[in-house]
C-alpha cells in the first residue's frame, strides 16, 4: 500500500514537471532512475564579498525547451559569466560523497552517489534574439529593462531588471515563458530587494558548432541534434555582501521536497547556513557487511531518516576538509575519488588556489552541504556564512570483514562470540540509521552463532566495536597563540596588581 502510494507521488511529480514551467532549482523528470530525485548541485566560492556560483545542469530533452531564470544581486559583466565542464561536478561529487570503509583488508570501497541536477525552466517558443524598437517600447511600458545581453558559448543570456512583478510576469509570458502562479508571487520580493534576473537560453546553432555537429544533419537525417543531454554548467561571479542562494523561485511549482548539494569553498573554514541549522550527518558507524552491495539505497534511507529526525529543516554537513594543494595531512580516509587538483579548483572559481608567487595556496577549505527543502519547511532563501571552523568531517560508514575458516579452537570460539555481538550491534546501527527492518537479516548473526559449541561463551565476551574514527588531520596549531598567552598573562598581572593596590589602600576597591 505504502509502496504504491510512493510510486504515485513520484509519477505525478514527473508528469507535472514535464508540462509546466519551472524556475531555478526546479527539477524536471525521471524520479525513478537516480538515487536522490530532484537534486540540484551548486558550487559556491566565497572570498570576502566576492561570490562565484556554478550551477550544474543535466536538463534532458529538447534544448529549445530549456531556459533558466536566476535572481542575482547586480548586473553581471560578460567577464563574470563562464561556462564550465560537467566533469567538474562529477569530480567534486565523487570526491566528497558519503563513503564506505572496510576494515581488516583496508580496501576502501564506496559506490559513488549519483545526483541529478536541474535548474531549468521549460520554454515555450524561441525567444527573439534581436530586440526591435517596438520591443524596447513595450519593455518600457512593462517596466522591464534589459540591462545586458550576452552570448557566452552556447548560451544566450539576458539580464533583466524590473520595476514591478506584474510587468516582469507579463514580459516573461509575452516572450514565451510560462510562469506558474506561485512563481509570480515571489517575483515581487526579489524585485523590491533590487535583485536582477539572469535569464538563460540555448543557442542551438552555437551548440552544434561547439559540438561539431553543424553539418551532420545533411548526411544523417535521423541524428537528433535537438535532443542534447548534459548542457554545460554556467558560472557567474558577483560582488555583494549577500552570501545566499535563492531557493524560493525554484520551489514555486514544486509540491514535494527537493534536494540540493552545495559544494562550498572558502579561505577560512567551513561554510554554514545562518538561517537554518547546519548539522553533521550521522557518520563513523559500524554497519553490516551486506550493505556493501546496497550502499546507495542505504545512504538514501539514512539521509531521509536523519532529515525526519531534525524536523525536516536541518542542513546536513557531508564533508569538510582543507583540500589546499599545499595541505600535507590526509585528504580523506578513505578517498572515494581523486582529490580536486589545482586546475579543478581554478575552474570552480577558487582564484586564490595559486598565489602571485605561483605557489599553491594552503587555505582552500571545502564544505559539502546537503539539504532537502520544501515550501513549508524552508520559507526563506538560504543565507550562509564562512566560519573559521577548520575541523575535518566526512560521512563515513564502516564495514568489518570477519575471519573465515576453522574457528573451533578456544580463541576462535571467543572470536565467534565477539563477532556475534558485533554483528548484532551492526544490525541495530543499521536499523537506527535507516529504519530498515533488520529482523530479516538474522542469518547474518546466525552464521557465527552456529559455529559456537558452547553458547555460554556469549555471556563472557563484549562487543569490540567502537566507532573507528580516523585521525582527521585537524590542524592543531592554535591561531594567534602569542596574543592569547599575552592576554592571559595580562589578566593575571592585572589581578596581582589590583590585589597589591588593595593591600595598600583598602578604600580603592569597591
Amino acid at each position, binding site marked *: 500500500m505504502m509502496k504504491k502510494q510512493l510510486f504515485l507521488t513520484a509519477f505525478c511529480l514527473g508528469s507535472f514537471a514535464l508540462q509546466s514551467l519551472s524556475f531555478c532549482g526546479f527539477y524536471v523528470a525521471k524520479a525513478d532512475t537516480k538515487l536522490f530525485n530532484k537534486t540540484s548541485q551548486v558550487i559556491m566560492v566565497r572570498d570576502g564579498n566576492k561570490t562565484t556560483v556554478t550551477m550544474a545542469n543535466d536538463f534532458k530533452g529538447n534544448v529549445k525547451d530549456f531556459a533558466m531564470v536566476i535572481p542575482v544581486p547586480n548586473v553581471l559583466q560578460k567577464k563574470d559569466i563562464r561556462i564550465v565542464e560537467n566533469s567538474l561536478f562529477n569530480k567534486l561529487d565523487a570526491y566528497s560523497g558519503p563513503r564506505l570503509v572496510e576494515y581488516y583488508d583496508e580496501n576502501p570501497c564506496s559506490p559513488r552517489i549519483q545526483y541529478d541536477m536541474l535548474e531549468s525552466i521549460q520554454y515555450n517558443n524561441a525567444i527573439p534574439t534581436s530586440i526591435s524598437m517596438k520591443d524596447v517600447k513595450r519593455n518600457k511600458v512593462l517596466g522591464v529593462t534589459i540591462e545586458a545581453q550576452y552570448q557566452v558559448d552556447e548560451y544566450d543570456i539576458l539580464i533583466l531588471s524590473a520595476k514591478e512583478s506584474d510587468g516582469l510576469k507579463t514580459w516573461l509570458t509575452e516572450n514565451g515563458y510560462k510562469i506558474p502562479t506561485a512563481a509570480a508571487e515571489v517575483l515581487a520580493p526579489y524585485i523590491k530587494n533590487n535583485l536582477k534576473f539572469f535569464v538563460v537560453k540555448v543557442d542551438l546553432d552555437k551548440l552544434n558548432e561547439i559540438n561539431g555537429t553543424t553539418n551532420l544533419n545533411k548526411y544523417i537525417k535521423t541524428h537528433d541534434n535537438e535532443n542534447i543531454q548534459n548542457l554545460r554548467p554556467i558560472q557567474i561571479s558577483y560582488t555583494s555582501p549577500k552570501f545566499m542562494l535563492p531557493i524560493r523561485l525554484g520551489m514555486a511549482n514544486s509540491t514535494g521536497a527537493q534536494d540540493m548539494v552545495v559544494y562550498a569553498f572558502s579561505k577560512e573554514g567551513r561554510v554554514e547556513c545562518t538561517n537554518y541549522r547546519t548539522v553533521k550527518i550521522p557518520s563513523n558507524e559500524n554497519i553490516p557487511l551486506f550493505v556493501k552491495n546496497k550502499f546507495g539505497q542505504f545512504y538514501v534511507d539514512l539521509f531521509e531518516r536523519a532529515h525526519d529526525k531534525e524536523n525536516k529543516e536541518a542542513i546536513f554537513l557531508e564533508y569538510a576538509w582543507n583540500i589546499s594543494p599545499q595541505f600535507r595531512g590526509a585528504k580523506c580516509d578513505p578517498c572515494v575519488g581523486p582529490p580536486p587538483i589545482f586546475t579543478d579548483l581554478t575552474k570552480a572559481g577558487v582564484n586564490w588556489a595559486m598565489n602571485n608567487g605561483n605557489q599553491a595556496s594552503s587555505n582552500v577549505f571545502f564544505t559539502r552541504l546537503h539539504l532537502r527543502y520544501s515550501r513549508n519547511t524552508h520559507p526563506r532563501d538560504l543565507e550562509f556564512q564562512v566560519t573559521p571552523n577548520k575541523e575535518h568531517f566526512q560521512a563515513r560508514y564502516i564495514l568489518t570483514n570477519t575471519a573465515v575458516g576453522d574457528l573451533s579452537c578456544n580463541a576462535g570460539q571467543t572470536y565467534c562470540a565477539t563477532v556475534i555481538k558485533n554483528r548484532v550491534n551492526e544490525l541495530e546501527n543499521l536499523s537506527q540509521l535507516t529504519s530498515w527492518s533488520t529482523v530479516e537479516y538474522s542469518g547474518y548473526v546466525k552464521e557465527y552463532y552456529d559455529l559456537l559449541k558452547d553458547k555460554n561463551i556469549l555471556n563472557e565476551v563484549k562487543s569490540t566495536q567502537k566507532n573507528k574514527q580516523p585521525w582527521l588531520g585537524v590542524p592543531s596549531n592554535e591561531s594567534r597563540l602569542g596574543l592569547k598567552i599575552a592576554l592571559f598573562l595580562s589578566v593575571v598581572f592585572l589581578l596581582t596588581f589590583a590585589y597589591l593596590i588593595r593591600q595598600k589602600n583598602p578604600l580603592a576597591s*569597591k
Partner: protein
Amino acid sequence: MRAISLSTKSIFFQDARNYQILYLAAFLVFGIFKLHWDLSLIKVSAILFTTCLTQFAWIKINNGQLSSLKSGLITSLGLCLILNSTSIITLSLAGMLAISAKYIIRYKHKHLFNPANFGIVLSILIFNDAWISPGQWGSDALFLFVLTVLGGFILHKIGRLETSLIFLGVLFLLEFTRTVLYQGWEMDVLLHKFSSGTLLLFSFFMITDPMTIPNSKKARIIWASILAVATFILSTWMQLYTAPIWVLFFMPPLTLFFDKIYPYKKFEWNNN
C-alpha cells in the same frame, strides 16, 4: 516593583539569578543533547571553570560577596550558548576577559559592557578562530515558546521585561514593514526570522542584564528602540546576521548618556 511577594518564597527563589542559571543551563543541555551541538563537555567545563575562577579572584581582590559567583556562572553559560570555537583556549580566554572587563572597565560603580557580550565580540575580533552560529537553534516552535515564556518570567522578576518587549516589538515592526508590507513576502518568512533562538536568547538574556543597561525605565525604552533600529539596519543592508550582538557592544556610551539625563537608582541583586 516586584510582582511576586518574596516573603512566601524560599531563599532560593529570592535571587532572580538562580532562575537565570537554571534557565540557561536547561538550554545548554537542550542544545547539546537535542540539537547535537558540536560543543564537547570538555569545552563547557573549561569555560565554566576559567570564568568562575576569574570571577572568584576578582571577588577576593575587591572583598566582594561570594554570591557574585552566580553572575560569573551566568556569563559562562551565556558564552557556551552563543560563542563557538574549535579552540578551548579561545573559549576559556573569552570567559576570563569577559569577567575581567567587568571589573576593570567601570564608571561610577557600574560596569559598562555586558560581560558575555564583551567576551564574545572580543574573541571574534582578535582570536581569528571564534564565531557565532545564528542558525544553531533551529526554529522548533515548542522550544521557542518555552524560551520566551521562561525568559519573560525571569525578566518580570527583575523588572526588565519592557526592555526585551520594546526591542523585539520595534524590530518586529520594522521587519514587518519591510519584509511583508514593502517586499511582499508571506508572513511565515517573517515569523521564521523571529523564530531564531539566538535572537530570543539575546533579547531575553543579554540586553536585559540590569547592570549594563540604563537604570531608568524611560531611558531603557529609548535605549531598546535604538538597539532595535541599529540591528535592523545592520542586518538588512549589511547582511550582518549577528547584528544585535555587535550593536550591543557599542551601546555603553549611550547607556552612560541615558544614566546621566535620566538618573535613577542602580539595580542591586537580591542576595539573601
